[in-house]
């Protein structure tokens, strides 16, 4: 059944969709935002250490629904199996109002200027689709600032000499240092490195009617019970709704973008909360489902002109899936390092993001975010027993006397790391599910292992008596930093969307999330997703006002 026509449908309410809906609604467009999950209130947050987005051993806390949303994962040996959201191979991103921004750690990184021109900087890399962005850091800088001020970022990045130019400091000061910070900072300085208080989308002081961080140690992976963590669910989405122009429909699962015979989208078909198939007509469609689900929706949106799905004329949709190769080191100390003061990661260095001899890039290093006792079980040094009396002694001795330094390596994209529609398996609504396959580029692994060595050096200098490097594995990357599947580019033959995030060959369909990232930076990507969403949606508003998008 068709519903009254609106100006825009935004599919997904995470980092990209939340910002886009806000900008469009505030500009006066009528917007319907479809979200497959539900609202999560701070008051219902119960911090279950076995059911959350960081450790999903017994399930995910913020969706997607475990039983309704299978996927197929193909391992490096070519064996396919059905996976559920709680399994790592699924590459789950939270499915709720706010998406991953409800439960993220909130690291609020700007990419560096070099991150937008990886191909120019490092040249072609064999067996890779490494390319420059069609944007520069300078294009995004004003929008980074908007995110920092409109959503709220704390920290102090001034001591970081590697950062891109910025006009304003962060709007909130850093939080007081934790014991890990006090141990790591002087060690970094002695090594000639440049440590600083990393940026967080978390209030260090009361702001926008919400409280300051309560310093809970169990932060990443969980919602914030005080609302001090700034996601789209408590900033831009309420703004969008307050205009009266935006209607958010929860528990609605998009089935396809509807396309007419002339290459224009006419709306979105979706299943509502009662599993009824509905059609929402619209002048324009914004796809913001995250890099795996956005690619899926494009592939599902077949038409006479688009037999392989929209944007997929040259078979680029779903390819170049990349998250981050996380590597680092665990340092074991003779002194107490643990003070149970959150929110977690607080000190970082960007000394190894670029300029590593012989390597195409690198990544940021920071102290690790969280220490769930169950997860620490696996940190025992190689060659020591995993269980029994020795295990228990290990836990007693080192849980409070260890520091983890980790970081996201910027990956070298590969064509065969991808999502496709599975030919057989369907979800609860009868829609073909995603099939994930491929692995990492050898260079990503090499760079990751370099980062692990650098993390180990830092920990040794900090006084660790034993340091264990955590190296990179070869498997497919994606997870919560998933990106790259609908690449942005000027050439329609080697990309899916143009620099305005508009799908090539489609007048009125946009992809606004990390799918469009050409490369994913050596950083948590959310600030870049949000900044690009501000930029792209301003462009959509401008095009709308020019009349080009009206059906």
């Amino acid at each position, binding site marked *: 059944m068709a519903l009254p026509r609106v100006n825009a449908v935004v599919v997904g309410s995470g980092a990209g969709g939340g910002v886009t809906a806000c900008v469009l609604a505030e500009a006066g467009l009528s917007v319907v935002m479809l979200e497959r999950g539900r609202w999560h209130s701070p008051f219902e947050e119960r911090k279950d250490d076995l059911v959350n987005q960081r450790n999903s051993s017994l399930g995910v806390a913020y969706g997607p629904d475990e039983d309704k949303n299978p996927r197929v994962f193909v391992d490096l040996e070519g064996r396919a199996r059905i996976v559920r959201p709680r399994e790592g191979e699924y590459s789950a991103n939270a499915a709720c109002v706010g998406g991953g921004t409800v439960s993220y750690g909130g690291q609020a990184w700007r990419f560096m200027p070099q991150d937008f021109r990886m191909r120019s900087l490092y040249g072609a890399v064999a067996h890779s689709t490494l390319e420059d962005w069609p944007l520069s850091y300078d294009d995004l800088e004003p929008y980074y600032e908007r995110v920092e001020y409109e959503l709220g970022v704390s920290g102090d990045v001034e001591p970081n000499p590697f950062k891109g130019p910025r006009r304003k400091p962060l709007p909130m000061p850093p939080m007081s240092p934790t*014991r890990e910070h006090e141990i790591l900072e002087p060690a970094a300085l002695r090594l000639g490195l440049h440590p600083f208080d990393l940026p967080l989308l978390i209030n260090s002081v009361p702001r926008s009617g919400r409280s300051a961080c309560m310093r809970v140690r169990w932060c990443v992976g969980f919602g914030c019970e005080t609302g001090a963590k700034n996601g789209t669910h408590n900033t831009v989405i309420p703004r969008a709704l307050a205009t009266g122009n935006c209607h958010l429909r929860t528990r609605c699962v998009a089935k396809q973008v509807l396309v007419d015979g002339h290459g224009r989208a006419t709306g979105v078909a979706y299943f509502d909360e009662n599993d009824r198939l509905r059609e929402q007509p619209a002048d324009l469609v914004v796809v913001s489902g995250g890099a795996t689900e956005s690619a899926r929706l494009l592939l599902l949106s077949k038409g006479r002109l688009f037999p392989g799905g929209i944007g997929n004329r040259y078979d680029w949709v779903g390819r170049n899936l990349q998250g981050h190769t996380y590597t680092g080191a665990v340092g074991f100390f003779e002194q107490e390092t643990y003070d149970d*003061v959150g929110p977690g990661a607080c000190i970082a260095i960007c000394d190894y993001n670029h300029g590593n001899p012989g390597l195409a890039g690198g990544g940021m290093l920071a102290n690790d975010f969280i220490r769930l006792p169950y997860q620490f079980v696996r940190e025992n040094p190689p060659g020591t027993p995993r269980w029994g009396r020795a295990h228990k002694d290990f836990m007693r001795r080192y849980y409070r006397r260890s520091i983890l330094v980790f970081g996201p390596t910027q990956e070298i994209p590969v064509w065969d790391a991808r999502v496709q529609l599975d030919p057989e398996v369907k979800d609860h609504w009868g829609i073909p599910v995603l099939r994930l396959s491929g692995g990492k580029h050898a260079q990503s692994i090499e760079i990751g292992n370099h980062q692990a060595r650098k993390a180990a050096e830092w920990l040794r200098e900090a006084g660790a008596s034993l340091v264990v490097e955590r190296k990179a594995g070869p498997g497919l990357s994606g997870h919560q930093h998933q990106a790259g599947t609908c690449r942005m580019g000027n050439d329609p033959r080697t990309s899916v969307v143009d620099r305005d995030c508009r799908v090539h060959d489609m007048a009125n369909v946009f992809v606004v999330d990390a799918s469009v990232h050409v490369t994913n930076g050596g950083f948590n990507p959310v600030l870049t997703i949000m900044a690009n969403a501000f930029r792209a949606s301003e462009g959509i508003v401008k095009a709308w006002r020019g009349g080009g998008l009206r059906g």
Partner: protein
Amino acid sequence: MDDPYDVDRRDFLKTGATAAAATAVGCGGPTGRWRALTEDEAKILAAACDQIVPPDQDPGAAQAGAVAFIDRQLATRLKDRLEVYQRGLRALDAMARRRHGKPFTDVPFDAQTALLQDVEKGQVEGTDWSGVQPAAFFGLVLDHTMMAFYGDPRHGGNRGRVSWKMLGVPDPPIRGRLHEAPARPAVAPLPPPSAAPGKG
């Protein structure tokens, strides 16, 4: 509120002892207080859990409710693992009888350790383990026992938050800190380690 599926070690052994006579290992459905396991399966599992996290100056996994945790998961979220558990526990018991002439639960602690080390490495003989991969079974028990012992008590394990107390994680760990100048929690002196990593 007390979880009806939680039992402490003493109750557990008592129940296990009476039920042992009545029920053959691996036969029939769940019995007694368990949702998925038989009493005998639960008894073998408790001994295996206490190998993973043995009782010493701090409680072991069985006392912390590991069997209650695993049983509950096998009846709900991890239903698809029940058969592996049933086969694996039966095989472990058969292996104990073959090597030591008695049930796994009656084998002395150190000999139980040796048996499980072989299961972990897949070094098993005869037909005891036909239909179940010993190393895979061990991996499940290991992982689930750790979840039970170190995870949130709401799932039936970590009774009395024993592991969090053992680690010096403030009890409960889920609560805020005052914003500025956080009062550092008093650092409890740690017990002297009885072994350093690498020295087993």
